């Protein structure tokens, strides 16, 4: 079940961000969150100056295109972090496991060991043929062939 908040962030968090905003310490991303919070209706009156200020800047943002020093390197870094995060996620959450005699094993090394052992027990195609060949002795083979020939006589 998801808990639904009435506001996009708690007042405590908003107050904290507003304080940091006035100290020039908030990032662009944090200011976007704050803007989202402040654009909500029915906020307490104490947020009125910030609502006015953020409301004043908001429409201007859409008219601005900018290039920056760090933006693209930032995007690249974010992608890289994303890739690692995905790998980490895969490693930790989609872990490998095997059932050996009805027991679940998640340790990779142990799984490999069991897997190798069971592979060795499997007869390969070649060994099967060799086994069959050995069973059919050459003597028998010759007799069979001779019988076949004699039948035509």
């Amino acid at each position: 079940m998801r808990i639904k908040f009435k506001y996009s962030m708690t007042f405590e968090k908003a107050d904290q961000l507003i304080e940091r905003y006035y100290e020039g310490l908030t990032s662009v991303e944090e200011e976007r969150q704050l803007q989202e919070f402040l654009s909500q209706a029915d906020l307490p009156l104490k947020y009125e100056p910030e609502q006015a200020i953020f409301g004043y800047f908001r429409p201007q943002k859409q008219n601005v295109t900018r290039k920056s020093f760090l933006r693209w390197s930032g995007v690249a870094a974010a992608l890289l972090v994303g890739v690692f995060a995905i790998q980490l996620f895969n490693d930790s959450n989609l872990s490998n496991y095997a059932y050996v005699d009805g027991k679940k094993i998640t340790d990779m090394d142990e799984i490999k060991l069991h897997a190798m052992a069971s592979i060795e027990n499997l007869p390969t195609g070649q060994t099967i043929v060799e086994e069959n060949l050995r069973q059919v002795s050459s003597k028998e083979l010759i007799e069979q062939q001779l019988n076949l020939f004699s039948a035509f006589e």
Partner: protein
Amino acid sequence: MSQERYKAEILPIRDKLFHIAHKILQGDEDAEDAVQEVLLKLWHTRDSLGTYDNVAAFATTVTKNHCLDKLKLKKRTESLDDIHHQRESGDNPYLQLERINTEEILKKIIELLPPLQQTIIRMKDVEEYEVEEIAEITGTKPDAIRVNLSRARKKVREEYIKWTRG
């Protein structure tokens, strides 16, 4: 002009530009502000900078003119306090503003901020630059940018409250 060229050709002459500004404006702080203003101006017009043969010479001229303008302005700038004083005396052109809307009030408040603070608050709150980026463009430390940004934001809030509830 690309970001790389801006970095390679403009930032290295920062000290030279500061020297020019200092000669005209005298004070360290004023000169530093002026240089940052010029660098941000050049940054915002960097697309057309490539057309100048000698970008360094152009930047020098811009700095000189900018500082001379500042010097002239300094002599006849009315501070925000003066305006408030007028406001209280009843004879002030902004009185109607209050009745217009908050947008007009904020526009006016921001226009009356010191130029460097104006540029920085615009870059951060409208153009969405990070403080570190602005610091890199102006060849300063992020903390120096933060100080101006903080002053600008606090001033806007303070003035807004004065205008709307005063």
